[in-house]
């Protein structure tokens, strides 16, 4: 199974080389600093919309939420309003908890066979912690990066930076600071979480077995993004003023390539571009899909409020009349009521028993 992560690793290394060599040796700053980022954003936005529209176009014929708690039934039985939601508000609460806190994943258990004959299920919290750390750290990093795309930098972003980098000595100081930069926890958390998510795909046998190359590739890519970011900030010390000049040029549609930005920056930007362009065609679309999953985002009051299927079509049924035609004689004999009495001829003859086999046909 090695080929799955080896191929992904090689792909990311190749991407690294393409950008690094392209900039350092080929002088292709314009390509990696301007053209590809624009292309990537266009692909991301168009692709994301296309995928979501694709899902939206598919019908929702039935209301089939997975109910994870007591239904609302009799007034004196306490319903589980969130896990078995019967109002839109409750669905919103369920979705909020799902999307923001990964509530379903929080339930995760690990099964083990003890003493060879006893199954036990214990809370398994690491996947929940790891993925929550990953997503929240990633979100923080993204928001923090908005300082490269805004001038002046909004207070909210500055505040986030302050919280995120509370080890930092010179808060709100000039962006091109000297001395030891503060440590952003989000960056380290992201790197650690990506490493954990990778490690479990490698070392937990079941997860290894189900993993595809497409599961490793984004992990390597995001690892690469976080790694190059940290490199620039703490070690190679990228010229931040120049970097911001470039990013501001991109968002104001006056793209420029300032002097003095090293190859690592372009690698970082290229990795981000690749991630954006790859996003709509990959499992990363779970970002959009989680909002639209019909087992989670619908009310469970299915007997209370009728749901309409847009493509409901008539089907062949075996009607009561046909049924009675099949069994009329036997029904009468057994004293069961019938809608239609048998033909008078037959009842006159009173040979229902003899006729029975014929009728059965």
């Amino acid at each position, binding site marked *: 199974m090695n080929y799955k992560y080896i191929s992904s690793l090689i792909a990311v290394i190749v991407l690294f080389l393409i950008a690094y060599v392209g900039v350092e040796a080929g002088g292709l700053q314009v390509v990696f600093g301007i053209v590809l980022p624009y292309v990537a954003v266009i692909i991301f936005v168009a692709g994301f919309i296309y995928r979501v529209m694709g899902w939206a176009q598919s019908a929702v014929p039935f209301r089939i939420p997975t109910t994870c708690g007591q239904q609302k039934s009799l007034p004196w039985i306490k319903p589980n309003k969130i896990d078995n939601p019967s109002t839109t508000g409750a669905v919103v609460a369920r979705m909020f908890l799902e999307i923001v806190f990964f509530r379903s994943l929080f339930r995760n258990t690990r099964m083990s066979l003890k003493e060879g004959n006893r199954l036990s299920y214990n809370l398994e919290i690491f996947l929940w912690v790891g993925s929550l750390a990953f997503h929240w750290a990633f979100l923080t990093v993204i928001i923090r990066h908005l300082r490269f795309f805004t001038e002046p930098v909004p207070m909210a972003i500055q505040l986030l930076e302050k919280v995120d980098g509370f080890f930092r000595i010179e808060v709100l100081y000039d962006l091109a600071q000297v001395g030891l930069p503060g440590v952003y926890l989000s960056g380290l958390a992201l790197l650690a979480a990506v490493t954990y998510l990778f490690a479990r795909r490698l070392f937990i046998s079941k997860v290894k077995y189900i993993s595809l190359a497409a599961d490793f590739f984004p992990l390597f890519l995001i690892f690469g993004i976080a790694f190059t970011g940290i490199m620039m900030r703490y070690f190679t010390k990228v010229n931040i003023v120049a970097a911001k000049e470039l990013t501001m040029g991109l968002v104001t549609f006056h793209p420029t390539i300032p002097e003095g930005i090293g190859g690592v920056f372009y690698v970082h930007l290229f990795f981000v571009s690749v991630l954006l362009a790859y996003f709509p065609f990959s499992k990363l679309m779970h970002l959009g899909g989680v909002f639209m999953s019909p087992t989670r985002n619908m009310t469970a009051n299915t007997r209370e409020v009728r749901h309409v299927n847009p493509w409901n079509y008539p089907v062949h049924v075996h009607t009561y009349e046909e049924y009675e035609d099949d069994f009329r004689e036997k029904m009468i004999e057994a004293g069961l*009521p019938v809608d239609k009495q048998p033909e008078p001829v037959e009842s006159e003859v009173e040979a229902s028993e003899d006729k029975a086999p014929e009728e059965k046909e």
Partner: protein
Amino acid sequence: MADDLPKSNELLTALDYGPSPKDWMDTPIDIRKGMYCYAGNPKSLETLGAPNARQWNPLDEDWKLPENWKEIIYEGFRERLERFRTFKIFMDICVRCGACADKCHFFIGTGDPKNMPVLRAELLRSVYRNDFTKAGKILGRLGGARPMTIDVLKEWWYYLFQCSECRRCSVFCPYGIDTAEITIMGRELLNLLGLNIDWIATPVSNCYRTGNHLGIQPHAFKDMMEFFVEDIEEVTGLQLEPQFNKKGAEILFITPSGDVFADPGTYTCMGYMLLFHYLKEKYGFDVTWSTYASEGGNFGFFTSHETMKRLNSKMYAEAKRLGVKWILGGECGHMWRVIHQYMDTMNGPADFLEEPVSPITGTKFENAKSTKMVHIAEFTADLIKHNKLELDPSRNDNKVITFHDSCNPARGMGLLDEPRYVIQNVCNHFYDMPANTIREQTFCCGSGSGLNAGEDMELRMTGGLPRANAVKHVHETKGVNMLATICAIDRAVLPALMEYWVPDVDVTGLHELVANALVQPGEAKRTTDLRGEPLPGMEEDADE
């Protein structure tokens, strides 16, 4: 039980969760005896007008498929992606985090990695990527895609009939991906090629023609109920008069035909009859049974959405014909998934019925006001809450009870506390199983969704292992000797499962317990329960 079924301790010893060294795509399909059900009888398929009715054998090389079978699958797949947002989203967004992997009773019981829900879905997803996504077309196997082949098709068939559509994995999935939905779609596709199992196809065909899965004709249905009347008279001294196909009755009662047919479901059926008798004597309750809508269950649900609709149509049609006010439904699992989440949409609106109100307590069943069908556990819980039943729980004192939440009422409805409330009022000894094995986390009996045949006994016993193991726990720690349930398939299959894993535990329906405890006006002194088992305390009473 099948002779070649391994002993339970052998099965446990052989259980291995270690991964196969080979990539799953390179592991060839091995259709193993004891793990699959026989092919659908062509006659049954013909009754329904289902495609490609023919004699075939899953063990044969040649499955006698139509020449253009790949095209049929492709078109069917495409059509379902458009018709079901669930299907499309579930094909697209799985990240293979593995949270579902050890949640499936079939995986826990067999250790077969393709029984991990994620991999069961990947069996279809791999083909989906190949046929419907750009990335899959370009990257091929590297992108997790593979073309449809006859071996892939056989793999689908084998593993889609090793899923009981219980939805336990869906509870744990961060995106709510529901393997039941994927299995339902997969089985629909297989049915387009005539690849059904007989344990589903023949009951469906029976139900279509005679009104119930077992093919009981109207007069025989009445006969069977009359046997129960005699049995009940023996135990209680009461003379019951159940009503059939009665026009103008207030309420139509529909329950799975399995309860009319085999023990211990029959005792549950007697339970309903005794409850109705009690309510009739005391409050003038007017309920009718139907021989036309004599099936609550719906194996059509395990065939295709269309077949489900065809069979389900009888409920509303019969309610309309008889002119009842609303419908009361018996204890059954998937029947209630269909009623709760599908019926009104498929065959409604039921505007010819009234919003259900209990004629005895006056309670409005607000939660059923559109579908107009009430679960008997809701109905009985309401009666007990309003003190409308005279109950003597000590008549169930020979039983130490635990409750098995059936998958569908738990995860497709949320009927969890009503049955527990009823049990706690009709019995003195009740203990729940461990929290991770009940309520929304309940484990399937291992034989749901039409897999309760005789030839796949090993599959059933392995799939039922997690459930049985939890029963064993309360059996050993609390002395539980009776497993109560609200599902007809449970009542049919759990006795075999208990016999295999926890031999001292028996199986009962909820309303059998109710009827045991129900003190009827004018009844004879009760010395046995409905099964004829002696009631220890009562004998002493008799001596005094």
